[in-house]
Structures are given as C-alpha cells and as structure tokens.
C-alpha cells in the first residue's frame, strides 16, 4: 500500500508541476511580450498625460476598417497610448456612447430620433465627427447586365419584393428570379440605403431577402451569385460586380458613384461616416488627438487606403 501511495503522490506532484509550468510559461510569455510592446517607450519632455491614456471605440462595421487601421497607425506612432476597437454596428456605437460604455462610437448614419431622445434623457449631447465620405453603391452580378441604370423607386421595388424577376424591371433583362441581398437590421449601411430608397416610397424590405452581416459578406455573395442585387459601401466594390447608375426620379440623369459625383453629393445615396462622442473631448486628450489624427492628411490617407473617400474639406464638429 505504501508503495502505491508514494507512487500516486509522485504522479500528482508531477501533474501539478506540469500545470504550474504551463501557467508560468503562459504568463511569463505574456509579460515578455508586454515588455516587447513597451520597449520603444521614450520619456517625453512635455505633455505626457495623454500618452498613457487609453480609450475604447465600438460601432459600425463599415467604419471598423478605418478605425482599426487608424488605431494601429496611431498606436505605432505614439507608443504608450492604447486604443481599443471593436465592431458591433452603428446602433451599438450610439447606444454605448450614450451609456458611457465606450469613449468613441462609430456610425455610418446620423442618429435616429430615438437615439437623440435617449441621449437627452441621459443628459448627454451627441457630438458627430464626419471622418470620411462614402456612398452606398447598389451592385448586381454581371449576369444581369453590364450597364444597368435604375431609378431609386425601381431599386425600392426590387428590394421590397414587388419585382421578383429581372424581366419585371425591364423586359430586356434576363427572365430570372432576383436574388436580393441586404444587411442586418441596425447596420448603418442598411439604414442609409432604406432612408433614401425604401422609406420615401413606404416600402419595406421583402421577407425573401438574404441577410448578410457585413460589407465583405455582401460582396462575396454578389460576386458568386448570378442575378443577385445588393448594396455595399464604396470601398467594397470590386471588378467582379456591376455598379448600378441611379436616378432620383424618372427623367433625371442616371449617376454613377464616381468620386466627383459622391463628393458633390450628386450621387443620391452619399453619406458621411462618423465618429461619435458624448461630450466634446477635452482639448489635448487622447480622444481629441485620435480624432484629429483621422482628420489629418495622414489619417485621410488611411481612409482612402481602406476604400473610402477623403473629406472634401476638414469639417469641425457638427
């Protein structure tokens, strides 16, 4: 028995040693990497407070690539600062800013009345900072037509399910069912699209619409699905899809979402992308500097890299 016992306890101790080693290795590697990150820290002569601050950002998945890339660039430029970015959607961006969960929200649409009311109730004001210009581009699979032109109302009818076959829209188009792709409710892209295309005509999105959680997901679906139609932000248009030229009404000119047309707001579904704060950030604070960074030429360069349009000028807080 005695032998068995000692045998047993050797095994426990070995198991415990292994577990402890695992823990030590895990956490040690953590500390090691931590020192890696902070090793570039230089002592700054002035104005040090903001360099050790941290802020958090959440919201629209459309703005997410911009915020992600800008946060990485900013943190690389100013070691010591910490910017935490996560997605969610425009709705989450507004609600978390109002609740004070995050410092900055991301939104691809202006606040809804309900969100403004909520903010008032909580006694905060919403500060919107346009950081980029975007267009919601209506796109179709090349199998539909290489140069498609539609009025807003026709697009609305397609997304409302009133037209179910392409030949319903125009007899010259193929006699095939329309595959409608939309974004999830709460998405700013969807909000913007519906505001211009559906709501003016009192249309509601058809039940048969295929829901996708993000611009890339819509892009992939359109690229791979014949006779499909959907909408994506300008940055997600690729050569494997056809961009539709839109007219406000029958008889008006059909306009492509070219850079000039978006910047001059001729293209009907142009929009700003925003960062949102609940108070005006204190001058010189990290939040203030980060917003300034995105609006600086360097930040606007990143905006362009991510497939969006630079702001025509640098507007201040709205």
């Amino acid at each position: 028995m005695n032998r068995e016992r000692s045998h047993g306890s050797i095994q426990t101790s070995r198991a415990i040693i292994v577990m402890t080693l695992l823990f030590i290795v895990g956490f040690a590697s953590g500390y090691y990497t931590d020192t890696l990150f902070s090793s570039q820290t230089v002592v700054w002569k002035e104005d040090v407070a903001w360099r050790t601050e941290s802020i958090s950002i959440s919201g629209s998945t459309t703005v997410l690539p911009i915020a992600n890339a800008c946060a990485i660039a900013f943190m690389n430029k100013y070691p010591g600062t910490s910017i935490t970015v996560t997605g969610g959607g425009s709705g989450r961006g507004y609600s978390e800013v109002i609740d004070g969960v995050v410092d900055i929200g991301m939104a691809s649409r202006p606040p809804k009345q309900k969100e403004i009311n909520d903010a008032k109730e909580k006694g905060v004001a919403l500060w919107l900072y346009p950081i980029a210009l975007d267009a919601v581009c209506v796109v179709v699979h090349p199998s539909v037509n290489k140069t498609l032109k539609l009025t807003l109302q026709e697009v609305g009818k397609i997304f409302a399910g009133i037209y179910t076959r392409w030949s319903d829209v125009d007899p010259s188009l193929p006699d095939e069912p329309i595959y409608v792709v939309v974004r999830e409710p709460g998405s700013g892209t969807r909000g913007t699209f519906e505001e211009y295309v559906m709501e003016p005509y009192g249309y509601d999105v058809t039940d048969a619409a295929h829901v996708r959680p993000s611009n890339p997901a819509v892009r992939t679906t359109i690229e791979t699905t014949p006779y499909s139609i959907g909408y994506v932000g300008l940055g997600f248009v690729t050569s494997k899809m056809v961009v539709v030229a839109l007219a406000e009404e029958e008889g008006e000119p059909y306009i492509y979402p070219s850079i000039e047309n978006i910047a001059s707001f001729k293209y009907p579904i142009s929009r700003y992308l925003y960062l949102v704060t609940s108070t005006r950030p204190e001058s010189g604070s990290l939040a203030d500097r980060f917003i300034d960074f995105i609006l600086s030429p360097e930040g606007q360069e990143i905006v362009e890299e991510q497939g969006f349009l630079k702001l025509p000028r640098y507007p201040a807080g709205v």
Partner: protein
Amino acid sequence: MSGQTGEKVIFAILGVPMLICILIFLWILSLLLTGIGTVRWELFTMSALRGGMLEMIVGTIYLLLGAAAVAGPIGVLAAIYLVEYAPSGGLTRIIDQAINNLAGVPSIVIGLFGYTFFCRHLGLGVSLAAGWLTLALMMLPIVIRGSEEALRMVPASFREAALALGATRWKAISSTILPAAAPGVVTSVILGMARVAGETAAILFTSCVLITRGLPKTPFEPVMALSYNLFVQIVALGAPAQRVFGITLVLFMIVTSLSLSAILLRSYYRLRQPWLRMKG
C-alpha cells in the same frame, strides 16, 4: 462460404462511411495546408500593431488558462462529491441532470447569459474576467465528467486500505484516490481547454476586441483572441486570405496540440497504471 462473402460485402458497406470521414479530414487538412504557403511565420511573433498576431495567441492562452483555473478546481471537487459522497437520492440525480444539461446548452446561449450576468449584472464589462467565467461554464461539464471517470477507475481497495489504517474519509480520498486519479483529472482539464479554445460565440459579446494595445494588465480589461479575431477578419473586414490562413493555422495548432496532448497523456498513463490497463 457464401455467408462469408456476404459478410465481406456488409463490411465493405460499413467501411465506406469511415473512408468518407477520413477523406473529409484529408480534404480539410489539404485546404489548410494550401494556405500554409502564404503564411509568413514571423507573424506569430509580431505584435498585432505591426500586423502580427502575438497578442491574439497570448490572449487566447490567457483566456484558456484562466477558464481552466476557474473550472478545474470546481469541477474536480464536484466530481469527488459525486463519486465519493453523493447519496443515491433525488438531489444527486438533479445534480447529474444539471451537469448533462449544462453540457448541452448552446454556446450562444452561454454567451447571452455571460453578457447579461457577468458583463452587465456583475459589472465586469467586456473583459478577460467575464471571458474566463463564461468559458469556464462551457468547460465545467467536461471537467466533471472526465474527473468522475478518472476517480471511478481507481480500485476501491486503495481507499479501503487507507480507511482500514484509520484515515478519515477525506484524508483517505485526498491521500490515495486523488493522486491515483490525478493524470485523468489533468487530462479532462486539457480536453476542456481544447473544447473551448476555438469557441467564438461565447466570447463574442463577453470579452474580446478587435484591436488594443498589448495584453490586459488586469482581468477587467478586454483581450484579443484568435477565434474572435478570425471571425471578425472573415466576416466584417473581409481580410486577405493570407491573414485568415495564418490565424486559422495557429488556432488549429493550439487546439490540436491540446487534444493530442490529452490523448497522449491518457494512453501514457493507461500503460503506466496497471489498474487502468485492466479496465481499459
């Protein structure tokens, strides 16, 4: 003789599904391997701020170790109670049922619960700690069941010998049965970690962010994790294949090495411990 050919036909029919399983595995493996060529290995040791994935790897390890630290002790103690103390009454049956049901709760529901209870009700917010607790809930049934099995494998004579020497019940358990079952217990914890390492739905709302600087310094800060990052990279950012394959590969390696080490540990101790060999 004709009976034997008939049997061969049946076996062949039964064998086809296994071949299909193996082909599926090889197919998936080949898909992953075609991605390897595009992966730059230095990504693994580079900070996310420089385009690497070091924080995600370490963050995943943080999440796993923390969850194991929560679920491990609770699970082992629960297993000891169930094997050694539990009266065979209604209460024990309820506990048994609850463990089975907990194992079956969809991870998205665990995520929802974690979000309302840990993040909002307990005020932990989106944080490492909330992730630990949420993942621990998923690990717990695996740890309990695995430890129970390990404890039951230990011959009764061990404990009886200790009791006969005048040890108290707890002393008998902690000095004889627990050491003998320790490898099995550790295996169950590792298996639990393997099960939750690739988990996305449970940490989607509770503990992860896309980018932040470095690693959390307190448990109340959010963390970057491979599975969540992979999800966002694919779904929301439409990241290039190279990035996706890189993260996929690391995640696969972590999960696989955990499962493999559990399998190896189990078979190693099967060989080492004679009483296990008899039963196994």
